């Protein structure tokens, strides 16, 4: 019996050992799987979070677009707790909920807006993970007038003529971009131009530019050169000029000169000539790589034997050419050979051949031609220059009422006080010793309290004022201010014309509702940002400052919107700090006020909108609509004021220097040896567009005899300099400032903008 049990036990021990080992391996495998499963779960959690975060951020942009597109009345109905869902119902991946709404008033350059805080809960149902993202949006109110990108070059919105030496200077050697709404004539040497864009005709003589684009006719003569592209949509006439590529919907005549910078023994090369019809009178062995005509092509002139001056020619209609000067020639109609024996280096093909030799390289067939795309016409939208739009930005608004000089003051400080409200300018002394004090007025425009002459606004002559004759027919303002002394720094809007003769240098943005002329050989004007907070020295001229080192020993006022504590805000007053002179507006001429009343509606709210539009008669009319709801009387009054644009001419006399930019609402004229350290814009708003026969229906710019923009001899337009606070001189009122959108509402072109976000 014991032998039997020993045998059983021996077999069982081995099996038990194996089973034991198997069990332990299995247990360990299970433990490994469990741990890896845990780690996998951790990874999945992290990945799932990423999915839901991605949904949340995509949702933040989607909701921003919802806010941007939301009409104002719906935005007003948003309340804290408002939730947004879509038709997916329970499968919603994103639920935005408004948690806070705050109205923010306008402050400096920042516009009035609503700050809306939204919690976005995003869930990825597949990953079963959620994310809560809190996003704060700024939602701006749309303005009636669209803005434009920052300036790139000089802009003239009427016919422009340049005579004598005119020089444009840009940083880093970059050339100037000239934009003209109308015709441009450059009759003598103008340097520093890179490109020209004109809605009318362009005439160039003796100038080197990179590119010309015109809706009308482009004429090059006297060794003018367009190194890259020349487009004359209506017609191109190059007689002893050069253009690298020429395009036109109309007729092209091209007699090429040799480019001045071409190396010796090098043939000039023209890449492409594409036109409605083409005539080339070649010289200098110019090589035309491609000639394509929508109708006829007449190609001739001098070309060395074997030089093949016309490498590839295509025309829909007849081609007249010496095949010995050509590479390949193709016509859908006919090839007429001016030499009956010469052969092309490539193929010539046309259904009809006249006077051409017989050869295998000359085929009687209809060739395949590349299509010619017509050139589109373009238009230009002028900068809306209206000094009255900047009345809220002005530190001083000066007007004459009978014999009194009244001044509306805002954002001005002296050492002892902050000045806001209505004042009267009281003068003391005569001629060069004349000083002007701001005396406070009460609501009835009476001096109260009695003036203590603490606030010196102008000194060393101040100005004199007189009535302007014929202002109703010339478009000038009814009054003219003859400035001669120092002025307090700031944005100063004169309700009148400005005449500046040897005016002493003061940092100010001078805005005139009429015209501005400078006279004398010593007149200089200075933009606020060019001077900077404490002035300095530039081009051997000592510049007074805006916040310290003020012009005039006794002037004791400074603009608090520019001088903010120890800092200087160069974007204050809607970027008027970059402007030296600005003229023109719609307030004086043809003014009509229409008032209507209606029963008060719940949706009525107080607002003022303005719009400037050119009517069918050519006049630019400004319409200001003011809605005034009165809950007490339950009546809403709508006041519509219309007025025609007038004034806006600026004439700069010889040897005058402008430190800053010039914005002329109508036309600009510079006379000999003028220097402008800034940008120039003239918008042509006070005159009708010039007719094709040269007649002008009306011109209400204020200065008689000024009928087009004129840049005279030795004018220098220099925006290569960048004083510390003037570093973005091309940001002007009406153009986009940093952080603003093209439509002036918010950022990146939309009414709504994300300002901050965080995970909750």
């Amino acid at each position, binding site marked *: 019996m014991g*032998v039997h049990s*020993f*045998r059983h036990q*021996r077999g069982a021990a*081995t099996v038990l*050992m*194996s089973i034991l*080992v*198997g069990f*332990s*391996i299995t247990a*360990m*495998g299970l*433990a*490994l799987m469990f*741990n*890896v499963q*845990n*780690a*996998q779960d*951790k*990874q999945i*959690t*992290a*990945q799932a*979070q*990423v999915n839901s*975060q*991605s949904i949340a*951020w*995509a949702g*933040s*942009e989607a909701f*921003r677009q919802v806010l941007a597109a939301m009409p104002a009345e719906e935005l007003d109905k948003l309340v804290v707790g408002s939730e947004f869902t879509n038709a997916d119902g329970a499968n919603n991946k994103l639920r935005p909920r408004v948690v806070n709404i705050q109205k923010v008033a306008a402050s400096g350059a920042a516009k009035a807006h609503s700050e809306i805080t939204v919690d976005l809960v995003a869930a990825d149902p597949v990953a079963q993970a959620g994310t809560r993202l809190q996003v*704060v949006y700024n939602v701006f109110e749309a303005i009636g007038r669209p803005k*434009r*990108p*920052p300036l790139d070059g000089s802009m003239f919105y009427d016919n422009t003529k340049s005579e004598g030496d005119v020089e444009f200077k840009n940083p880093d050697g970059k050339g100037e971009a000239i934009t003209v709404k109308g015709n441009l004539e450059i009759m003598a040497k103008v340097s520093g131009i890179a490109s020209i864009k004109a809605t009318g005709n362009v005439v160039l003589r003796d100038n080197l530019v990179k590119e010309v684009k015109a809706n009308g006719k482009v004429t090059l003569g006297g060794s003018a050169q367009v190194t890259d592209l020349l487009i004359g949509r209506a017609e191109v006439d190059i007689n002893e000029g050069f253009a690298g590529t020429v395009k036109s919907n109309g007729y092209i005549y091209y007699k090429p000169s040799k480019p001045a910078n071409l190396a010796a023994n090098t043939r000039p090369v023209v890449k492409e000539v594409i036109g409605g019809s083409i005539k080339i009178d070649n010289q200098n062995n110019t090589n035309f790589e491609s000639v394509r005509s929508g109708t006829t092509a007449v190609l001739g002139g001098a070309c060395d034997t074997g030089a093949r001056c016309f490498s590839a020619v295509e025309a829909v209609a007849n081609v007249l050419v010496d095949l010995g000067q050509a590479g390949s020639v193709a016509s859908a109609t006919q090839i007429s050979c001016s030499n009956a024996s010469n052969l092309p280096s490539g193929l010539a093909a046309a259904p009809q051949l006249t006077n051409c030799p017989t050869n295998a390289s000359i085929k009687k067939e209809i060739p395949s031609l590349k299509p010619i795309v017509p050139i589109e016409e373009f238009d230009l939208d002028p900068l809306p220059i209206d000094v009255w739009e900047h009345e809220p930005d002005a530190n001083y608004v000066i007007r004459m009422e009978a014999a009194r000089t009244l001044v509306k003051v805002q954002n001005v400080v002296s050492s002892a006080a902050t000045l806001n409200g209505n004042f009267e300018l009281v003068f003391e002394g005569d001629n060069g010793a004349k000083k002007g004090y701001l005396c406070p007025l009460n609501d009835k425009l009476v001096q109260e309290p009695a003036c203590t002459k603490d606030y010196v606004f102008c000194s060393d002559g101040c100005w004199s004022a007189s009535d302007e004759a014929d202002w109703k027919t010339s478009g000038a303002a009814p009054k003219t201010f003859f400035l001669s002394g120092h002025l307090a720094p700031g944005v100063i809007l004169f309700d009148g014309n400005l005449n500046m003769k040897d005016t002493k240098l003061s940092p100010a943005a001078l805005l005139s509702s009429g015209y501005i002329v400078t006279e004398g050989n010593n007149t200089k004007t200075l933009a606020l940002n060019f001077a900077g907070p404490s002035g300095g020295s530039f081009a051997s001229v000592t510049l007074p400052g805006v916040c310290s080192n003020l012009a005039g020993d006794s002037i004791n006022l400074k603009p608090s919107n520019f001088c903010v504590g120890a800092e200087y805000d160069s974007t204050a007053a809607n970027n008027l700090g970059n402007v030296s002179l600005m003229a023109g507006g719609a307030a004086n001429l043809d003014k009509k006020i229409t008032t209507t009343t209606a029963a008060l509606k719940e949706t009525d709210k107080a607002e003022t909108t303005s719009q400037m539009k050119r009517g069918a008669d050519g006049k630019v009319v400004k319409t200001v609509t003011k809605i005034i709801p009165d809950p007490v009387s339950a009546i809403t009054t709508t006041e519509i004021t219309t007025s025609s644009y007038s004034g806006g001419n600026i004439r700069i006399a010889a040897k005058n220097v402008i430190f800053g930019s010039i914005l002329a609402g109508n036309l600009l004229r510079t006379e000999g040896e003028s220097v402008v350290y800034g940008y120039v814009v003239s918008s042509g708003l006070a005159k009708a567009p010039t007719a094709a026969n040269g007649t002008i229906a009306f011109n209400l710019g204020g200065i008689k005899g000024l009928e087009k923009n004129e840049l005279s001899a030795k004018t220098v337009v220099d925006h290569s300099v960048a004083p510390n606070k003037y570093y973005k001189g091309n940001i002007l009122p009406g153009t*986009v400032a*940093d*952080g*603003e*959108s*093209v439509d002036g509402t918010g*950022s*990146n*072109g*939309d009414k709504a*903008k*994300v300002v*901050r*976000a*965080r*995970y909750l």
Partner: protein
Amino acid sequence: MMWRQNCGATMISLLVGMVVSMLAILASLSMFHDLVRTSAEAKTDARHEGDLSLAVLRLDQELLAAGFDMGRTPTDNKNLDLLIAPENAGVSQVAWRFKNGAQYICKRARSYREGDRYNLEITDTKPALCTRDWPLAMDDTNWVAPAEQVASIQLLSLAGDGKITFNRPLINFVAAADAACAPYGAAAPVVAGVDPPKHPVLTINAFDVAAVYKPLDPKEDPLGPRPHSVCLVNITVAVP
């Protein structure tokens, strides 16, 4: 009679049986040894990777708040609410500040090696210290201790000869170039002529734990870091 003969138990047959059994068991043990080792490493690597992923995710969420509601302008110094300290002696740190309601909150993330463990901690400033204008500083006396430990990792060598350490911390923080960016690319369309706003970008370089499999000098991280970029949308940098 044959059955009884076959059932005979002699010493030799017993020994032979034992030897055969032992050989089978030895083979199993060898496989057992490899399996134990592999499972331990896989378990450790999976845990490390998971910990690192969660640590980076946590940092991403926390750092996004930098600059939130601080009322700064683009011309303000971008480092007012975000401070990235240069890596020093194996320690990499970043501090940031944001506003939550009426309260200012300053936080610091610190990645360092302590012995053979790589740690990542997040902590707040001591009470009342964090104000709008308090200059962010990494000095330990400013920060609450002990900090919240977000990750703690020990790297083991494949060769089985114990723990290995590299000369760089588990995670390091590097400032990348400012860029017009948004998390997950969700930004409003760019308008021609308008510069989109730029924001600071912080790169979080995390370890690749698979590096332990590289039989190279363990003092250097042979595979290099896995970068993760965080776009700090609440801080806007002035466009030059």
